[in-house]
Protein backbone atom coordinates (compact mmCIF):
# COMPACT_ATOMS: atom_id res chain seq x y z
CA UNK A 1 0.00 0.00 0.00
CA UNK A 2 2.86 2.39 0.77
CA UNK A 3 5.58 3.12 -1.78
CA UNK A 4 9.14 2.13 -0.98
CA UNK A 5 10.00 5.77 -0.42
CA UNK A 6 7.22 6.15 2.13
CA UNK A 7 8.46 3.06 3.90
CA UNK A 8 12.02 4.35 3.81
CA UNK A 9 11.00 7.66 5.39
CA UNK A 10 8.88 5.80 7.91
CA UNK A 11 11.60 3.36 8.87
CA UNK A 12 14.41 5.92 8.81
CA UNK A 13 12.75 9.23 9.48
CA UNK A 14 14.99 12.27 8.81
CA UNK A 15 15.28 15.16 11.24
CA UNK A 16 13.29 13.76 14.10
CA UNK A 17 13.15 15.85 17.23
CA UNK A 18 12.58 19.32 18.53
CA UNK A 19 14.82 22.38 18.07
CA UNK A 20 15.37 23.72 21.60
CA UNK A 21 15.64 27.40 20.68
CA UNK A 22 13.44 27.24 17.59
CA UNK A 23 12.65 30.41 15.65
CA UNK A 24 9.22 29.07 14.74
CA UNK A 25 7.02 26.15 15.68
CA UNK A 26 3.97 24.81 13.89
CA UNK A 27 1.63 22.09 15.07
CA UNK A 28 -1.38 20.60 13.34
CA UNK A 29 -3.75 17.72 13.87
CA UNK A 30 -5.41 16.18 16.85
CA UNK A 31 -4.79 12.96 18.72
CA UNK A 32 -8.50 12.21 18.39
CA UNK A 33 -8.09 12.13 14.63
CA UNK A 34 -5.00 9.99 14.99
CA UNK A 35 -2.41 12.40 13.64
CA UNK A 36 -0.44 15.22 15.27
CA UNK A 37 2.59 16.84 13.62
CA UNK A 38 4.91 19.42 15.07
CA UNK A 39 7.63 21.21 13.09
CA UNK A 40 10.26 23.47 14.61
CA UNK A 41 12.49 25.60 12.42
CA UNK A 42 15.66 27.62 12.62
CA UNK A 43 15.73 30.54 10.13
CA UNK A 44 18.84 32.33 8.85
CA UNK A 45 18.73 35.03 6.16
CA UNK A 46 15.12 34.15 5.41
CA UNK A 47 16.18 30.61 4.68
CA UNK A 48 15.31 27.46 6.63
CA UNK A 49 18.63 26.60 8.23
CA UNK A 50 17.36 23.69 10.29
CA UNK A 51 14.12 21.83 10.86
CA UNK A 52 12.99 19.02 13.11
CA UNK A 53 9.66 17.21 13.44
CA UNK A 54 7.73 15.16 15.92
CA UNK A 55 4.76 13.17 14.75
CA UNK A 56 2.10 11.01 16.34
CA UNK A 57 0.39 9.09 13.59
CA UNK A 58 0.40 6.43 10.99
CA UNK A 59 3.11 5.55 8.51
CA UNK A 60 1.99 8.23 6.08
CA UNK A 61 2.00 10.88 8.78
CA UNK A 62 5.57 10.02 9.74
CA UNK A 63 6.80 9.81 6.15
CA UNK A 64 5.21 13.07 5.02
CA UNK A 65 6.72 14.80 8.05
CA UNK A 66 10.12 13.34 7.35
CA UNK A 67 10.22 14.19 3.67
CA UNK A 68 8.96 17.72 4.20
CA UNK A 69 11.93 18.42 6.44
CA UNK A 70 14.24 17.31 3.64
CA UNK A 71 12.37 19.34 1.08
CA UNK A 72 12.53 22.64 2.98
CA UNK A 73 16.06 22.68 4.37
CA UNK A 74 18.03 25.45 2.67
CA UNK A 75 14.95 26.86 0.97
CA UNK A 76 13.81 30.47 1.37
CA UNK A 77 10.69 30.99 3.41
CA UNK A 78 8.75 31.77 0.23
CA UNK A 79 10.00 28.64 -1.47
CA UNK A 80 9.17 26.53 1.59
CA UNK A 81 5.73 28.10 1.75
CA UNK A 82 5.05 27.02 -1.77
CA UNK A 83 5.37 23.33 -0.94
CA UNK A 84 1.89 21.93 -0.70
CA UNK A 85 0.58 18.73 0.89
CA UNK A 86 -0.05 17.50 -2.61
CA UNK A 87 3.58 18.12 -3.60
CA UNK A 88 4.69 16.19 -0.53
CA UNK A 89 2.54 13.21 -1.49
CA UNK A 90 3.95 13.38 -5.01
CA UNK A 91 7.51 13.52 -3.72
CA UNK A 92 6.80 10.28 -1.90
CA UNK A 93 5.55 8.64 -5.07
CA UNK A 94 1.94 8.86 -3.98
CA UNK A 95 -0.10 7.90 -0.93
CA UNK A 96 -3.08 5.58 -0.55
CA UNK A 97 -6.33 7.44 -1.18
CA UNK A 98 -7.52 7.05 2.40
CA UNK A 99 -4.31 8.67 3.66
CA UNK A 100 -4.49 11.78 1.51
CA UNK A 101 -6.43 13.85 4.03
CA UNK A 102 -5.69 13.58 7.74
CA UNK A 103 -2.28 11.99 7.42
CA UNK A 104 -0.93 14.42 4.83
CA UNK A 105 -0.67 17.68 6.74
CA UNK A 106 3.08 18.01 7.15
CA UNK A 107 3.33 20.90 4.69
CA UNK A 108 0.60 22.68 6.60
CA UNK A 109 2.55 22.24 9.85
CA UNK A 110 5.57 23.73 8.11
CA UNK A 111 3.54 26.73 6.93
CA UNK A 112 2.32 27.30 10.45
CA UNK A 113 5.92 27.24 11.70
CA UNK A 114 6.84 29.88 9.12
CA UNK A 115 3.86 31.97 10.12
CA UNK A 116 4.94 31.62 13.74
CA UNK A 117 8.45 32.78 12.84
CA UNK A 118 7.14 35.79 10.94
CA UNK A 119 4.76 36.75 13.72
CA UNK A 120 7.41 36.39 16.41
CA UNK A 121 9.65 38.70 14.38
CA UNK A 122 7.10 41.45 13.92
CA UNK A 123 6.54 40.56 10.29
CA UNK A 124 2.91 39.55 10.61
CA UNK A 125 2.14 41.83 7.71
CA UNK A 126 4.22 39.59 5.41
CA UNK A 127 2.31 36.44 6.30
CA UNK A 128 -0.28 36.93 3.62
CA UNK A 129 2.35 37.47 0.92
CA UNK A 130 4.70 34.68 1.85
CA UNK A 131 2.00 32.16 2.69
CA UNK A 132 -0.38 32.70 -0.15
CA UNK A 133 -3.05 30.74 1.68
CA UNK A 134 -2.10 30.79 5.36
CA UNK A 135 -3.15 27.74 7.37
CA UNK A 136 -4.40 27.77 10.90
CA UNK A 137 -3.72 24.96 13.32
CA UNK A 138 -6.85 22.91 13.56
CA UNK A 139 -6.51 22.64 17.34
Amino acid at each position, binding site marked *: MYTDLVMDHFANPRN*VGEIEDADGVGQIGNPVCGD*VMRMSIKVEDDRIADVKF*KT*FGCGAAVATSSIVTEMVIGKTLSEAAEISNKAVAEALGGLPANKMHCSNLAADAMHIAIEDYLTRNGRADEVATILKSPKKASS
Partner: protein
Amino acid sequence: MNYVYFDHAATTGVDPRVFARMEPYFSEFYGNASEIHGPGRKAREAVEWGRAAVAQALGANEKEIVFTSGGTEADNMALIGYAQRFSGGHIITSAVEHPAVMESARFLQRQGWDVTFVPVDQYGAVDVDAYRAAFRDDTRLASVMLANNVVGTLQPVAELARIAHDQGVAFHTDAVQVAGSLPIDVDELGVDMLSISGHKIYAPKGIGALYVRKGTRIGPILHGGGHERRLRSGTENVPGIVGIGAALELAVAEMSATRPRLEQLRDKVVAATLATIDEVQLLGDAVNRLPGNACFSIRYIEGESMLLQLDGKGIAVSSGSACASGSLEPSHVILAMGFGAEEAHGSLRLTLGRENTEAEIDYFLEVFPPIVEHLRKMSPLYVKG
Protein backbone atom coordinates in the same frame (compact mmCIF):
# COMPACT_ATOMS: atom_id res chain seq x y z
CA MET B 1 6.23 -16.84 4.94
CA ASN B 2 9.11 -15.89 7.12
CA TYR B 3 6.91 -14.02 9.52
CA VAL B 4 6.11 -14.34 13.15
CA TYR B 5 2.37 -14.31 12.65
CA PHE B 6 0.34 -12.94 15.56
CA ASP B 7 -2.79 -12.02 13.63
CA HIS B 8 -4.92 -15.15 13.85
CA ALA B 9 -8.06 -13.18 14.59
CA ALA B 10 -7.74 -11.62 11.14
CA THR B 11 -7.16 -14.90 9.39
CA THR B 12 -5.32 -18.19 9.69
CA GLY B 13 -3.44 -20.29 7.19
CA VAL B 14 -5.09 -23.47 6.07
CA ASP B 15 -3.71 -26.25 8.26
CA PRO B 16 -1.82 -28.67 6.01
CA ARG B 17 -3.89 -31.54 7.42
CA VAL B 18 -7.04 -29.67 6.48
CA PHE B 19 -5.65 -28.88 3.07
CA ALA B 20 -4.89 -32.54 2.47
CA ARG B 21 -8.57 -33.32 3.07
CA MET B 22 -9.80 -30.59 0.74
CA GLU B 23 -7.34 -31.01 -2.06
CA PRO B 24 -8.97 -33.94 -3.90
CA TYR B 25 -12.13 -31.89 -4.37
CA PHE B 26 -10.57 -29.24 -6.58
CA SER B 27 -9.38 -31.12 -9.62
CA GLU B 28 -10.21 -34.76 -9.03
CA PHE B 29 -13.63 -35.04 -7.36
CA TYR B 30 -14.92 -31.78 -8.68
CA GLY B 31 -18.57 -32.68 -9.23
CA ASN B 32 -21.53 -30.40 -8.59
CA ALA B 33 -23.31 -31.70 -5.50
CA SER B 34 -26.71 -31.05 -7.10
CA GLU B 35 -26.05 -33.55 -9.87
CA ILE B 36 -27.08 -37.15 -9.46
CA HIS B 37 -24.35 -38.76 -11.56
CA GLY B 38 -21.26 -40.26 -9.99
CA PRO B 39 -19.18 -37.07 -9.75
CA GLY B 40 -22.22 -35.28 -8.32
CA ARG B 41 -22.86 -37.97 -5.74
CA LYS B 42 -19.22 -37.92 -4.69
CA ALA B 43 -19.50 -34.16 -4.16
CA ARG B 44 -22.78 -34.54 -2.27
CA GLU B 45 -21.18 -37.08 0.03
CA ALA B 46 -18.35 -34.66 0.75
CA VAL B 47 -20.79 -31.82 1.45
CA GLU B 48 -22.82 -33.96 3.82
CA TRP B 49 -19.68 -35.19 5.52
CA GLY B 50 -18.68 -31.57 6.10
CA ARG B 51 -22.13 -30.73 7.39
CA ALA B 52 -22.03 -33.64 9.83
CA ALA B 53 -18.57 -32.61 11.04
CA VAL B 54 -19.66 -29.02 11.63
CA ALA B 55 -22.87 -30.14 13.34
CA GLN B 56 -20.93 -32.52 15.56
CA ALA B 57 -18.47 -29.83 16.61
CA LEU B 58 -21.29 -27.49 17.62
CA GLY B 59 -23.55 -30.06 19.26
CA ALA B 60 -26.09 -29.48 16.51
CA ASN B 61 -28.07 -31.60 14.10
CA GLU B 62 -26.89 -31.81 10.49
CA LYS B 63 -30.12 -30.34 9.25
CA GLU B 64 -29.43 -27.23 11.27
CA ILE B 65 -26.23 -26.27 9.38
CA VAL B 66 -26.37 -23.95 6.35
CA PHE B 67 -23.15 -23.27 4.51
CA THR B 68 -22.36 -19.70 3.49
CA SER B 69 -19.46 -17.87 1.89
CA GLY B 70 -18.06 -16.80 5.27
CA GLY B 71 -18.77 -15.20 8.59
CA THR B 72 -20.07 -12.00 7.04
CA GLU B 73 -22.70 -13.79 5.01
CA ALA B 74 -23.69 -15.95 7.99
CA ASP B 75 -24.20 -12.82 10.10
CA ASN B 76 -26.15 -11.07 7.34
CA MET B 77 -28.33 -14.12 6.92
CA ALA B 78 -29.02 -14.36 10.64
CA LEU B 79 -30.15 -10.76 10.90
CA ILE B 80 -31.58 -9.92 7.49
CA GLY B 81 -32.84 -13.41 6.70
CA TYR B 82 -34.60 -13.59 10.03
CA ALA B 83 -35.99 -10.06 9.80
CA GLN B 84 -37.59 -10.90 6.44
CA ARG B 85 -40.26 -12.85 8.28
CA PHE B 86 -41.58 -9.63 9.74
CA SER B 87 -42.71 -6.39 8.23
CA GLY B 88 -40.66 -4.50 10.80
CA GLY B 89 -39.90 -4.27 14.49
CA HIS B 90 -37.02 -3.93 16.89
CA ILE B 91 -33.64 -5.64 17.12
CA ILE B 92 -31.24 -5.71 20.03
CA THR B 93 -27.53 -6.04 19.52
CA SER B 94 -24.40 -4.79 21.26
CA ALA B 95 -22.16 -1.80 20.72
CA VAL B 96 -19.13 -4.01 20.13
CA GLU B 97 -20.32 -6.32 17.36
CA HIS B 98 -18.28 -7.06 14.28
CA PRO B 99 -19.28 -4.82 11.34
CA ALA B 100 -20.95 -7.85 9.72
CA VAL B 101 -23.62 -7.75 12.45
CA MET B 102 -23.48 -4.01 13.04
CA GLU B 103 -23.92 -3.06 9.40
CA SER B 104 -26.63 -5.68 8.86
CA ALA B 105 -28.48 -4.06 11.76
CA ARG B 106 -27.90 -0.61 10.27
CA PHE B 107 -29.21 -1.85 6.93
CA LEU B 108 -32.38 -2.98 8.67
CA GLN B 109 -32.52 0.39 10.40
CA ARG B 110 -32.54 2.06 7.00
CA GLN B 111 -35.42 -0.26 6.09
CA GLY B 112 -37.41 1.10 9.01
CA TRP B 113 -36.42 -1.24 11.84
CA ASP B 114 -35.52 0.04 15.29
CA VAL B 115 -32.19 -1.12 16.64
CA THR B 116 -30.80 -0.87 20.16
CA PHE B 117 -27.03 -1.13 20.49
CA VAL B 118 -26.58 -2.20 24.11
CA PRO B 119 -23.56 -0.59 25.81
CA VAL B 120 -20.63 -2.47 27.30
CA ASP B 121 -18.46 -1.93 30.36
CA GLN B 122 -14.79 -0.94 30.35
CA TYR B 123 -13.82 -4.57 29.73
CA GLY B 124 -16.09 -4.90 26.74
CA ALA B 125 -18.75 -7.04 28.45
CA VAL B 126 -22.35 -6.31 27.57
CA ASP B 127 -24.34 -4.52 30.25
CA VAL B 128 -26.86 -7.24 31.09
CA ASP B 129 -29.29 -4.89 32.82
CA ALA B 130 -29.35 -2.53 29.88
CA TYR B 131 -29.78 -5.53 27.61
CA ARG B 132 -32.71 -6.82 29.65
CA ALA B 133 -34.28 -3.39 29.73
CA ALA B 134 -34.00 -3.05 25.95
CA PHE B 135 -36.67 -5.64 25.17
CA ARG B 136 -39.92 -4.27 23.84
CA ASP B 137 -43.17 -5.76 22.64
CA ASP B 138 -42.00 -5.60 19.07
CA THR B 139 -38.49 -6.96 19.66
CA ARG B 140 -37.93 -9.72 17.10
CA LEU B 141 -34.30 -10.69 17.48
CA ALA B 142 -31.31 -10.24 19.75
CA SER B 143 -27.77 -10.75 18.49
CA VAL B 144 -24.70 -10.61 20.72
CA MET B 145 -21.32 -12.05 19.79
CA LEU B 146 -19.81 -14.92 21.75
CA ALA B 147 -16.41 -13.22 21.93
CA ASN B 148 -15.15 -9.94 20.65
CA ASN B 149 -12.67 -9.92 17.78
CA VAL B 150 -10.75 -6.84 18.94
CA VAL B 151 -10.34 -7.22 22.68
CA GLY B 152 -11.25 -10.91 23.04
CA THR B 153 -13.85 -10.45 25.78
CA LEU B 154 -16.34 -13.32 26.14
CA GLN B 155 -19.98 -12.40 26.48
CA PRO B 156 -22.45 -14.17 28.80
CA VAL B 157 -24.34 -15.54 25.83
CA ALA B 158 -26.16 -18.37 27.62
CA GLU B 159 -27.66 -15.82 29.99
CA LEU B 160 -28.44 -13.35 27.21
CA ALA B 161 -30.15 -16.07 25.18
CA ARG B 162 -32.22 -17.08 28.20
CA ILE B 163 -33.36 -13.51 28.72
CA ALA B 164 -34.34 -13.24 25.07
CA HIS B 165 -36.27 -16.50 25.19
CA ASP B 166 -38.09 -15.38 28.34
CA GLN B 167 -39.37 -12.56 26.17
CA GLY B 168 -40.16 -14.93 23.32
CA VAL B 169 -37.41 -13.43 21.20
CA ALA B 170 -34.97 -15.39 19.03
CA PHE B 171 -31.25 -15.11 19.73
CA HIS B 172 -28.25 -15.13 17.39
CA THR B 173 -24.59 -15.17 18.31
CA ASP B 174 -21.55 -14.48 16.16
CA ALA B 175 -19.13 -17.21 17.23
CA VAL B 176 -16.61 -16.53 14.48
CA GLN B 177 -13.78 -15.87 16.94
CA VAL B 178 -14.69 -18.69 19.31
CA ALA B 179 -15.21 -21.70 17.07
CA GLY B 180 -12.22 -23.97 17.26
CA SER B 181 -10.76 -22.09 20.25
CA LEU B 182 -13.24 -22.85 23.00
CA PRO B 183 -15.93 -25.54 23.26
CA ILE B 184 -19.28 -24.61 21.73
CA ASP B 185 -22.54 -26.39 22.36
CA VAL B 186 -25.57 -24.74 20.82
CA ASP B 187 -27.87 -26.35 23.37
CA GLU B 188 -25.83 -25.28 26.37
CA LEU B 189 -25.69 -21.79 24.92
CA GLY B 190 -29.36 -22.02 24.06
CA VAL B 191 -28.90 -19.92 20.92
CA ASP B 192 -31.19 -20.11 17.90
CA MET B 193 -28.56 -19.10 15.35
CA LEU B 194 -24.78 -19.10 15.45
CA SER B 195 -22.25 -17.93 12.83
CA ILE B 196 -18.82 -19.36 12.11
CA SER B 197 -16.18 -18.66 9.46
CA GLY B 198 -13.66 -21.04 7.92
CA HIS B 199 -10.63 -18.82 7.58
CA LYS B 200 -10.49 -18.06 11.28
CA ILE B 201 -10.09 -21.74 12.14
CA TYR B 202 -7.41 -22.96 9.71
CA ALA B 203 -9.90 -23.70 6.94
CA PRO B 204 -9.89 -21.58 3.78
CA LYS B 205 -11.37 -18.18 3.08
CA GLY B 206 -14.72 -18.16 1.31
CA ILE B 207 -16.57 -20.63 3.49
CA GLY B 208 -18.67 -20.20 6.62
CA ALA B 209 -21.75 -21.63 8.19
CA LEU B 210 -24.86 -20.56 10.01
CA TYR B 211 -26.40 -22.84 12.58
CA VAL B 212 -30.19 -22.42 12.49
CA ARG B 213 -32.04 -24.23 15.24
CA LYS B 214 -34.83 -26.53 14.10
CA GLY B 215 -38.04 -24.51 14.17
CA THR B 216 -36.29 -21.17 13.71
CA ARG B 217 -37.61 -19.91 10.42
CA ILE B 218 -35.44 -17.66 8.31
CA GLY B 219 -35.61 -16.57 4.69
CA PRO B 220 -32.79 -16.71 2.16
CA ILE B 221 -30.72 -13.65 1.34
CA LEU B 222 -29.24 -15.23 -1.80
CA HIS B 223 -31.91 -16.41 -4.22
CA GLY B 224 -31.59 -18.98 -6.95
CA GLY B 225 -31.43 -22.72 -7.41
CA GLY B 226 -32.64 -23.48 -3.90
CA HIS B 227 -29.54 -25.13 -2.49
CA GLU B 228 -29.05 -25.76 1.24
CA ARG B 229 -32.71 -26.63 1.76
CA ARG B 230 -33.71 -23.47 -0.07
CA LEU B 231 -31.94 -21.31 2.49
CA ARG B 232 -28.82 -20.46 0.49
CA SER B 233 -28.66 -20.73 -3.26
CA GLY B 234 -25.42 -21.12 -5.17
CA THR B 235 -23.37 -24.16 -6.14
CA GLU B 236 -21.93 -25.63 -2.96
CA ASN B 237 -18.25 -24.88 -2.34
CA VAL B 238 -17.29 -28.52 -1.90
CA PRO B 239 -13.60 -28.18 -0.96
CA GLY B 240 -14.45 -25.28 1.34
CA ILE B 241 -17.13 -27.33 3.07
CA VAL B 242 -14.79 -30.27 3.51
CA GLY B 243 -12.21 -27.81 4.80
CA ILE B 244 -14.41 -26.20 7.44
CA GLY B 245 -15.60 -29.63 8.58
CA ALA B 246 -12.09 -31.02 8.79
CA ALA B 247 -10.80 -27.87 10.50
CA LEU B 248 -13.45 -27.96 13.22
CA GLU B 249 -12.94 -31.65 13.78
CA LEU B 250 -9.22 -31.07 14.20
CA ALA B 251 -9.63 -28.04 16.44
CA VAL B 252 -12.01 -29.87 18.74
CA ALA B 253 -9.72 -32.90 18.91
CA GLU B 254 -6.73 -30.76 19.85
CA MET B 255 -8.45 -28.11 21.94
CA SER B 256 -7.48 -29.52 25.30
CA ALA B 257 -3.83 -29.27 24.28
CA THR B 258 -3.91 -26.04 22.25
CA ARG B 259 -5.98 -23.95 24.57
CA PRO B 260 -3.78 -24.03 27.70
CA ARG B 261 -0.71 -23.58 25.55
CA LEU B 262 -2.10 -20.44 23.93
CA GLU B 263 -3.35 -19.13 27.25
CA GLN B 264 0.09 -19.56 28.73
CA LEU B 265 1.79 -17.79 25.81
CA ARG B 266 -0.78 -15.03 25.95
CA ASP B 267 -0.38 -14.58 29.68
CA LYS B 268 3.36 -14.37 29.22
CA VAL B 269 3.17 -11.69 26.54
CA VAL B 270 0.63 -9.71 28.54
CA ALA B 271 2.55 -9.85 31.79
CA ALA B 272 5.88 -9.04 30.19
CA THR B 273 4.50 -6.16 28.12
CA LEU B 274 2.80 -4.58 31.12
CA ALA B 275 5.99 -5.02 33.15
CA THR B 276 8.50 -3.63 30.66
CA ILE B 277 6.63 -0.75 29.04
CA ASP B 278 5.02 2.02 31.02
CA GLU B 279 1.71 3.64 30.29
CA VAL B 280 0.41 0.49 28.68
CA GLN B 281 -2.96 -0.97 29.40
CA LEU B 282 -4.44 -4.37 28.68
CA LEU B 283 -7.74 -3.95 26.85
CA GLY B 284 -10.56 -6.39 27.54
CA ASP B 285 -11.12 -8.72 30.43
CA ALA B 286 -7.93 -10.10 31.99
CA VAL B 287 -9.40 -13.56 32.55
CA ASN B 288 -12.64 -13.89 30.65
CA ARG B 289 -11.08 -13.63 27.20
CA LEU B 290 -10.17 -15.64 24.13
CA PRO B 291 -7.15 -17.91 24.68
CA GLY B 292 -4.98 -16.26 22.04
CA ASN B 293 -5.95 -12.60 22.36
CA ALA B 294 -3.65 -9.93 23.82
CA CYS B 295 -4.80 -6.38 23.10
CA PHE B 296 -3.08 -3.29 24.44
CA SER B 297 -3.42 0.44 24.38
CA ILE B 298 -0.02 2.04 24.34
CA ARG B 299 -0.10 5.71 25.10
CA TYR B 300 1.33 8.52 22.98
CA ILE B 301 1.94 6.43 19.91
CA GLU B 302 -0.24 5.27 17.11
CA GLY B 303 -1.21 1.73 16.16
CA GLU B 304 -0.26 1.68 12.51
CA SER B 305 3.21 2.97 13.29
CA MET B 306 3.75 0.19 15.81
CA LEU B 307 2.37 -2.32 13.38
CA LEU B 308 4.67 -1.19 10.58
CA GLN B 309 7.69 -1.12 12.86
CA LEU B 310 6.93 -4.66 13.97
CA ASP B 311 6.37 -5.59 10.36
CA GLY B 312 9.90 -4.36 9.67
CA LYS B 313 11.04 -6.91 12.23
CA GLY B 314 9.02 -9.65 10.56
CA ILE B 315 6.19 -9.69 13.08
CA ALA B 316 2.59 -9.47 11.85
CA VAL B 317 0.12 -7.96 14.29
CA SER B 318 -2.95 -5.83 13.95
CA SER B 319 -4.15 -2.54 15.26
CA GLY B 320 -7.61 -1.69 16.49
CA SER B 321 -10.43 -2.77 14.30
CA ALA B 322 -8.71 -5.02 11.86
CA CYS B 323 -11.73 -6.53 10.21
CA ALA B 324 -12.83 -3.40 8.45
CA SER B 325 -11.18 -2.82 5.15
CA GLY B 326 -8.80 0.11 5.01
CA SER B 327 -10.53 1.83 7.89
CA LEU B 328 -8.74 4.64 9.66
CA GLU B 329 -11.39 5.09 12.29
CA PRO B 330 -10.45 4.29 15.85
CA SER B 331 -11.99 0.96 16.81
CA HIS B 332 -15.66 1.35 17.70
CA VAL B 333 -15.14 -1.47 20.19
CA ILE B 334 -12.49 0.38 22.20
CA LEU B 335 -14.49 3.60 22.08
CA ALA B 336 -17.59 1.73 23.28
CA MET B 337 -15.54 0.54 26.26
CA GLY B 338 -15.22 4.18 27.31
CA PHE B 339 -11.70 4.88 26.07
CA GLY B 340 -10.80 8.06 24.23
CA ALA B 341 -9.95 8.16 20.56
CA GLU B 342 -6.30 8.70 21.44
CA GLU B 343 -6.17 5.47 23.41
CA ALA B 344 -8.05 3.68 20.66
CA HIS B 345 -5.56 4.93 18.09
CA GLY B 346 -2.78 3.51 20.23
CA SER B 347 -4.13 -0.02 20.26
CA LEU B 348 -2.20 -3.09 19.26
CA ARG B 349 -3.66 -6.59 18.98
CA LEU B 350 -1.73 -9.84 19.09
CA THR B 351 -3.77 -12.94 18.36
CA LEU B 352 -1.88 -16.17 18.78
CA GLY B 353 -2.48 -19.40 16.96
CA ARG B 354 -1.54 -23.02 16.92
CA GLU B 355 1.81 -22.66 15.18
CA ASN B 356 3.15 -19.94 17.47
CA THR B 357 6.02 -20.79 19.79
CA GLU B 358 7.43 -19.39 22.99
CA ALA B 359 10.54 -18.35 21.08
CA GLU B 360 8.35 -16.13 18.91
CA ILE B 361 6.88 -14.51 21.99
CA ASP B 362 10.38 -13.94 23.32
CA TYR B 363 11.38 -12.36 20.04
CA PHE B 364 8.42 -9.99 20.21
CA LEU B 365 9.26 -9.08 23.77
CA GLU B 366 12.79 -8.31 22.69
CA VAL B 367 11.99 -6.05 19.74
CA PHE B 368 8.83 -4.34 20.93
CA PRO B 369 10.11 -2.12 23.78
CA PRO B 370 12.72 -0.35 21.60
CA ILE B 371 10.00 0.26 18.99
CA VAL B 372 7.79 1.89 21.60
CA GLU B 373 10.72 3.97 22.75
CA HIS B 374 11.59 5.03 19.20
CA LEU B 375 8.00 6.04 18.41
CA ARG B 376 7.54 7.84 21.69
CA LYS B 377 10.71 9.82 21.04
CA MET B 378 9.11 10.88 17.79
CA SER B 379 5.75 11.67 19.40
CA PRO B 380 4.79 15.28 20.12
CA LEU B 381 2.40 13.93 22.77
CA TYR B 382 5.04 12.20 24.85
CA VAL B 383 6.38 14.70 27.37
CA LYS B 384 8.87 12.58 29.26
CA GLY B 385 10.80 11.82 26.08
